[in-house]
């Protein structure tokens, strides 16, 4: 059961700011969608392996070599000695 408080918690987990009006509207919509999703839980899936990729692929590694960073650093708003400045993310 999707309630407004469940959705508020999920929004917190998603780091997604959301207004009370949006929460009110989306609770009903998401409840309806989840109800529709429920049908997959009635299928017998015993011994069925999950599929993570559509085509069997042998991942091909490549040498981890830096070619150029200029194209990235060029458009950063604040750069000093090849370091770019971002808001503090460790509190």
């Amino acid at each position, binding site marked *: 059961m999707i309630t407004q408080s469940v959705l508020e918690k999920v929004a917190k987990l998603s780091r997604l700011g959301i207004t009370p009006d*949006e929460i009110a509207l989306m609770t009903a919509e998401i409840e309806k969608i989840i109800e529709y999703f429920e049908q*997959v839980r009635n299928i017998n899936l015993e011994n069925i392996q999950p599929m993570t990729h559509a085509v069997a692929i042998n991942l*091909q590694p490549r040498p981890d070599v830096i070619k150029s960073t200029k*194209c990235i650093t060029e458009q950063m708003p604040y750069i000093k000695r090849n370091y770019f400045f971002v808001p503090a993310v460790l509190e």
Partner: protein
Amino acid sequence: MISKELCSLSITSLREKIQNKEIKFIDVVNSVLNRIKSEEQKICGYITLFEEQAIKQAQNLDATIKDRENLHPLTGIPIAIKDNICVKDFLTTCGSKILHNFISPYDATAVARLKNAGVIIIGKTNMDEFGMGSSTETSYYGPVANPIDTVYVPGGSSGGSTAVIAYRGAIGALGTDTGGSVRLPAAFCGVVGLKPTYGRVSRYGLVAFASSLDCIGPIAKTVDDTAIILSTIAGQDEYDATSVNIPVNKLLCNPEAIKDYTIGIPKEYFAEGLDPKVAKVVERTIKELGKKCKAVKQISLPQTKYTIATYYLICTAEASSNLARYDGVKYGLRTTSQELINMYEKTREDGFGTEVKRRILLGTYGLSKGYYEEYYGTAQRVRTLIKQDFDEAFKTCNVILTPTAPTPPFKLGEKISDPLAMYLSDVFTTSPSLAGLPAISVPGIGKVNNFPVGIQIIGPAFAEECILNCASAIEKING
């Protein structure tokens, strides 16, 4: 008369005229730009237009290319690129406010391959925000209208790319298809759109929505043109470890080849929910095609009823993870705040539209503790069953034919406030996506309310040539 203008010709016809020196490269670009000027205001197909660069590039080609015999078929051809595919030094917004200022630092591999062929990139096309939508109404840059009748949606999410092809504002285009986003708008706009086998075209430089499903695909006026673009962009790429090392032959469409094909018709696609008028056009197409192919037989894809639920469980989970990178720290929009968590939340609140928020919430819910196995894990298992359905079906047929969409185009605004009704527009396109199979949408034989009806041809993995041959046969019957 638009039909006599260069912008209305196919790549193959333009190639011939260029080779015979009947026309210059600049003539083609000017014809396309004139068309954009007259139509763009009412359609809103482009987010960014490369007018100046396109003119310069065409003039340069005219001045430097002397030997017109051995040109790549795409040299000098104006191609539009969906705005979630990176083109170096230009904006890549994904139709979102959160990337309103993001300039691509590199070319996507598909774009680099087009550039190597001498393509003239004419602009970046409008799209549902991050590819999330079936009508191209969720873009921050405004909804796209269907050029056949502007009261209607063009389908989505590559509605900008298909609309500009339909109104002749580009000769070819790239779209992206996660659960039908090339095929559905191709059907609604009466053009051809192909989703290749997963891994056939590199995803490097494609902004991720649902990584296990995302594909870049060509859109054009004709099946031949679609094949030309696909052969140019396909092939393994060291920058995408999931791209597959299978040689790409020069794809030539041979409508006669279908004389050896058995065409499978899945009975589950002709059930409740399919508009009777659409069904009539599909049945007529099957009847006409039946005269040219080896056999038409009914097949069964029993898991069809579960594909929408499975697809949306998987794509929302992957989207919630992929979109976590838009946090205001590294690039894109930043809404400043003294407090870090508040900065994340405010940036994402301001930067994302309603549908993206809805899918992030759905995906996070489906991946959260206690629900992961129940929802995401279950959907991954059902995905295995869906693929097994196709494996079984392809033991008895070469290609599978279905409608691309269950209904003709709907009106702008008609489904935007009912997300589940919108999701159900993808009911026929999501199963090949989940199975990773190639599929093409081509206009069928007949119309509904003046709109062409898209026919979807699905093939086994890496059998792009088969679906192109079959689509080409339908195109030939249509004249």
